[in-house]
């Protein structure tokens, strides 16, 4: 699978309160959550983001709470994948469990600029910055987690007989 979209850049340690503030957690409706995605980091983000766009962030993306509302909000507002040097561990597993593709690459996260057009080959982890022509290789994803993404998340993986 390929993803293509504009890059939206964020800094280090973007926490889940920035991704979706707790004041909106009295619902888990993706249509409501997407209106507030990243709003405490960039209030304009929900209105600017378009289907396919890519979040490119600094280290430790998604730190803080375990709320799955964070990857739900990111997916619902059309973001195709997230690229960062590292992800906080609960956000990391939530993303695979829910089928939100994420890619770890120090180089891509540093080199990609806001607004660049990015293409990602999800199978190989090859990240291309079409604006600058540079290419980056994301760290390999463990086999089990590749299966989760291929099945569309943990529940579908279990339903298909894959177990945990």
């Amino acid at each position: 699978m390929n993803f293509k979209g504009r890059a939206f850049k964020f800094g280090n340690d973007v926490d889940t309160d920035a991704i979706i503030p707790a004041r909106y957690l009295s619902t888990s409706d993706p249509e409501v959550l997407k209106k507030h995605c990243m709003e405490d980091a960039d209030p304009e983000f929900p209105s600017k983001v378009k289907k396919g766009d890519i979040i490119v962030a600094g280290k430790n993306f998604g730190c803080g709470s375990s709320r799955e509302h964070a990857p739900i909000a990111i997916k619902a507002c059309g973001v195709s994948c997230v690229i960062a040097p590292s992800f906080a561990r609960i956000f990391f597993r939530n993303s695979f469990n829910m089928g939100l593709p994420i890619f770890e690459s120090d180089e891509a996260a540093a080199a990609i600029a806001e607004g660049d057009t990015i293409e990602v080959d999800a199978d190989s982890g090859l990240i291309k910055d079409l604006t600058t022509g540079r290419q980056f290789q994301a760290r390999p994803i463990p086999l089990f987690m590749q299966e989760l993404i291929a099945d569309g998340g943990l529940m579908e993986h279990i339903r298909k007989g894959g177990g945990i």
Partner: protein
Amino acid sequence: MGMTIAEKILAAHSQTPAFQPGDIIKVNVDVALANDITAPIAIQAVKESGVKKIAHADKVVFVLDHFTPNKDIASANQCKYVRDFAHQQSIDKFFDGGEAGVEHALLPEKGLVLPGDLIIGADSHTCTYGALGAFATGVGSTDLAAAMITGQAWMKVPMTMKFIFKGTLQPWVGGKDLILYLIGKIGVDGALYKVMEIEGPAISALELSDRLSMSNMAIEAGAKAGIIAADAKTLNYVKTRATRGYTVFASDKDAVYDSITTFDCESIEPQVAFPHLPENARGISEAGEVRIDQVVIGSCTNGRIEDLRIAAKVMKGNKVAKGLRCLILPATPEVYGRALAEGLIDIFLQAGSIIGPPTCGPCLGGHMGILAKGEKALATTNRNFVGRMGDPASEVYLCGPAVAAASAVIGKISAPQEVVK
């Protein structure tokens, strides 16, 4: 080759005991926890899977503690959704209304989490139970749904970092100060994907409440778990509470660690973490002049009876500074009852504090203590991210109960010695 506590607990709960760090293994969980924010997504996932009756209701614990007492219609509906499911699925470890407390204070108190357990919780501060010598880690709602159906979870086997605290504690320093100091040294991703094993003479000298505060904030360094080996104090704590068996694990002498770091408590003073990350920890002597609008004493980090005793010791006979709101939320009904019986609530009321019900409310900017634009709060909670307690242009500072109580009296961030001469 020797094993760490974390590796031993994972092995005891897995069918594939020969594993290496980085391997992904399946583990049987003893406890699967969720709250009123995270349970609805898990329940929805169970319903969508077509499973009518979950196979592992006996492992499930639901606590309605975040937006409770129901803050609005939407949160009331979320709670009702969880309540209905708990009744339908015969989940008997369901805590609601006057039986509910802040989950990570409630579960140890009720003896529902024990040494050697493997606990997952759809709440990041599930790592609190590491203080009992358990492997406890925060997961997402989908993990919870899977555990309700299969009784299992997947785990990437982590490396362990060892932290040793030597020396004796300085006056007014507690577990919260030690963990803020540690996070200040290693950063909010200093233990990312790893287990923190905390030990040393200063840790052995700590009571369980202080140890629970420390393990509680392991996640604020990015850790998967924050484990303190069970000792005589731990066993004394659990023996009157446990209603099932448990196992005490200790790390082998030749266990392999990712790193070993030693801190000397002689040089650690009460800490304050400045906005907007828990890693921005400073000694109280370096806090400078920070006037505050609100103090919050409570939460899964510092809402236990021992915390309230410290706050009361500082606040006794004093008044909350004019114009400052001091909120005190005992973390569980049992803590509340003991605080009443010991006269602590009276001390807080006489000082002009507001006493709230057991709830997570203000910690996450949910309700009961929301900050306006530009306001500053000092809290015994665990996170000070942008907008954490209210308006995105408000600020949260973190500390232990002694500094919080002293600062409530003086009106700016202050050392306890400034109030208790």
